[in-house]
C-alpha cells in the first residue's frame, strides 16, 4: 500500500477515534449531569465554568456570552469549586449550563457554545413553567 495512503488512513482512524471518544464522554457526562441542581432563581440563568488554563474561554466563550441579552451568568472557577464542577460532570472547559428557575440543569454544553445555541436554550428554559425540571 502507498505509504501516503497508509499514513492518511492511520491519522484518520486516530482522529475519528478521538472524535467518537469525545462524543461518548460528552453524552455520558450530559446524561449524568442533566437535572443536577444549584440555587433556584427568579429567571433562568447560566452557570459558566471556566479557569485560568482555558484560553478558549477568553477568546471564544466570553465574547459569545457577552452577546446574550440580559441574563444572569455565574462565572465559576472549575478548579476552585471542584464540588460544583463535579456535580455537573465538568470534564472540559469551557462548560456552560443553562439552569431553570427551579435551579436544575436543563442544557449542558461541554466545550465552546456559540451565542445562538445558548439563546435557543435560554428561550426554551424561559418557556418552561416555573418549577419544571429537565427530562433529558
Amino acid at each position, binding site marked *: 500500500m502507498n505509504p501516503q495512503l*497508509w499514513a492518511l488512513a492511520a491519522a484518520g482512524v486516530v482522529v475519528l477515534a478521538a472524535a467518537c471518544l469525545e462524543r461518548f464522554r460528552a453524552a455520558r457526562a450530559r446524561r449524568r449531569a442533566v437535572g443536577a441542581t444549584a440555587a433556584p432563581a427568579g429567571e433562568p440563568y447560566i452557570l459558566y465554568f471556566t479557569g485560568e488554563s482555558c484560553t478558549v474561554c477568553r477568546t471564544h466563550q466570553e465574547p459569545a456570552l457577552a452577546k446574550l441579552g440580559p441574563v444572569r451568568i455565574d462565572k465559576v472557577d472549575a478548579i476552585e469549586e471542584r464540588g460544583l464542577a463535579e456535580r455537573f460532570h465538568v470534564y472540559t472547559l469551557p462548560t456552560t449550563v443553562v439552569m431553570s428557575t427551579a435551579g436544575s440543569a436543563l442544557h449542558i454544553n461541554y466545550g465552546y457554545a456559540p451565542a445562538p445555541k445558548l439563546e435557543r436554550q435560554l428561550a426554551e428554559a424561559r418557556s418552561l413553567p416555573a418549577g419544571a425540571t429537565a427530562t433529558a
Partner: protein
Amino acid sequence: MDRVGELNPRPHREVVVATTVVDHSALKVNQTGIVATVLVAFIGSAFGRPFLVLLPLLAVVLLVGTFAPQWALFKQLYFRILKPSGIVKPRPVQDRPEPHNFAQGMGGVVVAVASLFVFAPLLTGDFRTSPTLGIGLALSLLVAVLAFVNLAFGYCLGCQIYYRLGRAGLIRA
C-alpha cells in the same frame, strides 16, 4: 446580576486571570505554518522524496522556537512582516505564553520522531516499501491536525497537557 467579566462578588467565585498578554495572531500564523509545511511535505512526498526534508526542518524550527522565541521562524514572520505590513491584524488576549510554548515544543518533538521514522528507511536502503515511512507521515499528519484544530477552534491539546502536568506537580505550571 452577574454579567461576564463582573464576577459574582463572593470571593470563592473569583477566577484567576492571566496578567500577561499574548498576541494570538502570532500563534495562528505559527499554526498555519505548521499545517502548510506538513501538507507540502506530505503531498510532495508522493512526487519526490526531497519534500520530506521539510519535516526535520519543521522539527528544528519548532524546537528552536520553543527555547529561543526570537528564533521562532513563523512568529518572526508575523512580527517582522505580516504585522507591520498590516496583512495580519494583532489579536492580543490575556493569556500566558508558557502553555503555547510547551505545545509548540511537544509538536516539535513529535515531528522530530516522525522525521526519524521517515528517514529510517535510508539505513536499510529500501525507501519505497518501508512501513516506517507511513508511520512518520501519520505522526506528522496528526501534528498538523492538532495545529489545525487549534487554528480553527482554539482548542490547544498541548496547553491542556501542560496544565495537567502542572496540576500533577510534574512541571512548574
